[in-house]
């Protein structure tokens, strides 16, 4: 296994991590303000779809990003209003929205393009992939950062911005308070519901970016249900990362790596159906190990 090969695997990891990191950040901010949002899957999927639709008709990756993110934010607004304002049960809303977007995207795929399954048209214009000017000359490091899109970097910037917002600003402080004791915030004059709905819509923004990078970032196509549980994996990542932006980065990289590793296994002859299982099994194992560690920490106290 040459160093270049390892660098390629790391590069692959980075690409796989991006959508999960965006969604994990979305999950984390929702948890922090006390809303359990399991519609992340749907928020990502609809963004993937509308990014491709916009791309087909305008050929502009930029407009595709905007379209994708906007659609995700609309969905997340519905989630926010139902769960926060009308206090609808989170499992009901989340699973209904996930199924709904799955059905809607497949439906529109046929209505707009007359296609079932996958839309893969040469007309589609991928997001620009670039290399960092000086870095790409360095042997090992250059391969790591080979051909990444702007969003691959932006995810980490976003994580840092969210960190600063939550832990350094007054607005972020108030937002955190809503998740700790909503009743108290309302009696102290904070508009808790507004903050909650706002954060849920923001999670839509983040998941939108995640979905967009999935369909026009590394590949340029849309497949029915292409998110394949990444939204749920992101929930696990957020949980592992203690709903902390920096923790989410670490946890998401882990899941990104699990996916890349699965691909590596495939090249060594293991059947694809089995390698596809790797990230899901990894998630379960990671959650269990993490929970055990938490328990032992508590005991030592």
């Amino acid at each position, binding site marked *: 296994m040459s160093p270049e090969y390892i660098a390629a695997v790391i590069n692959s990891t980075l690409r796989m991590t991006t959508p999960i990191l965006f969604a994990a950040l979305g999950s984390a901010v929702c948890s922090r303000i006390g809303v359990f949002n399991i519609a992340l899957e749907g928020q990502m999927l609809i963004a993937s779809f509308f990014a491709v639709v916009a791309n087909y008709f305008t050929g502009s990756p930029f407009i595709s990003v905007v379209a994708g993110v906007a659609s995700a934010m609309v969905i997340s607004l519905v989630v926010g209003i139902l769960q926060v304002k009308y206090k609808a049960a989170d499992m009901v809303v989340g699973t209904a929205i996930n199924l709904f977007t799955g059905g809607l995207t497949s439906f529109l795929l046929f209505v707009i393009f007359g296609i079932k399954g996958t839309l893969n048209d040469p007309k589609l214009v991928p997001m620009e992939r670039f290399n960092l000017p000086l870095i790409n000359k360095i042997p090992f490091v250059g391969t790591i950062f080979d051909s990444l899109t702007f969003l691959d970097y932006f995810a980490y910037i976003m994580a840092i911005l969210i960190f600063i917002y939550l832990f350094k600003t007054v607005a972020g402080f108030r937002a955190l*308070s809503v998740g700790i004791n909503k*009743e108290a915030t309302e009696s102290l004059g904070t508009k808790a519901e507004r903050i909650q709905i706002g954060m849920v819509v923001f999670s839509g923004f983040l998941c939108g970016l995640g979905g967009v990078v999935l369909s026009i970032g590394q590949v340029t196509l849309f497949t029915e249900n292409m998110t394949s549980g990444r939204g749920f994996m992101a929930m696990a990542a957020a949980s592992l990362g203690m709903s902390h932006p920096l923790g989410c980065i670490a946890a998401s990289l882990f899941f990104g790596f699990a996916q890349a590793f699965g691909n590596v296994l495939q090249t060594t002859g293991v059947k694809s159906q089995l390698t596809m299982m790797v990230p899901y099994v990894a998630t379960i194992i990671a959650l269990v190990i993490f929970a055990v560690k938490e328990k032992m920490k508590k005991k030592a106290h």
Partner: protein
Amino acid sequence: MLLEMKNITKVYGSLVANDNINLTLNKGEILAVVGENGAGKSTLMKILYGLEKPTGGEIIIDGEKQNFKSPHDAMHHGIGMVQQHFMLFDTFTVAENIVYGKEPKKGSLFFNRNKAVEIVKELSEKYGLEIDPTLKVNECPVGLQQRVEILKVLYQDADIIIFDEPSAVLTPQEVSELIKTMKNLAAMGKSLIIVTHKLQEVMDVSDRVMIMRSGKFVKEMPTSETSIEEMSFLMVGRRIIDKEVKEQATTGKVLDIENLVLHGEGGKNVLDGLSMNVEAGEIVGIAGVSGNGQSELIECITGLKPFDGGEVRLLETDIKGKSVGQIREAGCACIPEDRYLYGCASKATLVETSIMAHYEKSELSSHGLLKDKAVKSFTQDLIDRYDVRTSGLSQKAGELSGGNIQKLIVAREIEQNSPLLIAAEPTRGVDIGAIEFIHNKLLEKRAKGDAVLLISSELSEIMTLSDRIYVIYEGKIAGEFRRGHVTEEQLGLLMMGGKADGSKEN
């Protein structure tokens, strides 16, 4: 006159919580509002604080009529409330909690946490309320948490401060600190209203006292012109005759605890070699300030928590390692401290609530199947005999008032007919009629020849009902007395760690 509440009326459906109440408050004065549970005093304060709107009447501050839409509104007009259930963010620090809402900023976006710490230090000095601003709230004992609430109110420049049942959660030492604080605040020009039913504190701290009963105003006078007996009489409407409990012989040990040890955090033991016993035919009371191991003692006896050392015998059975179900079988029933946490499920029906721990009996079930008619008549029987006010068997437990669900829980546990009954805070938050009822039921059980272990933070309850009293302090027994052989003062001293000879234990 700084504040006037005129003709305040508040109606909930068919219930009149406040009926034409008038209240006045002067600057620098401490007013006590007293009444039993259900008198309407908390409702009155909620109206003042903007949490509720009055059905009728008006609030006048400094001559101007007010209409508060929210607590935030009330705060703007200088009214602050230190509530019974704290509104704190437990993972935030003391400073963060105090400056919440008016946070000092760096620029216009960033939270200046260092400045917040400074501000709190200044406030703390100004009002003589010592506190460490960098502690997390969940690391603070209850008395300190209340201090945070007080500082919060002072930071918002409140001139009128309402205290709702402030001493309910404090140790006697913390209570005397609080009284000092309140007098100091009044001396600095703040006006205080204290809502309470602890009459001794009313005598110790207030300038005037207003008595309410069943939603109505009863009387108002300077504290110096009244007494505990008079206030008590006015609160309840009749003289409370001290219960006369007949002596009776006991017949053998039911509960025997020797050197019980339970490890705690940081190497300190929560239960530290505790030894005590309860015999059949007696009520044993454990007096102690909340937090000295009482809750854990109950958990160890009932099997909810495994203990680390010592022996606990229930009749002939050694209960170490036994499950909750097995211990109940061995002869232990328990009226839990927190009725909503352990005692019931708010969405369960009354039938489901009352058959818990009874359902395996042959009258109520057979071969794993419940007998429908039997469980219904069992429940109805409990409701009739224990005076539980309900609207029907299918009503949910959470829909009953606190006193009524407590009566149902008491009924359920007494009907276990177990040799040992543990009663933890059996009359907390319960109206006076129900209190008397429950006390009588406990005495009945004693008369039957069973053992009752009573744990309560109400000393008067302990002293009235118990044949023997143990004092618990820091996980150990600090003293044991027979009925009539100890005074409230002696008990209070031991409860705070003092020694029977007057010296203080370090």
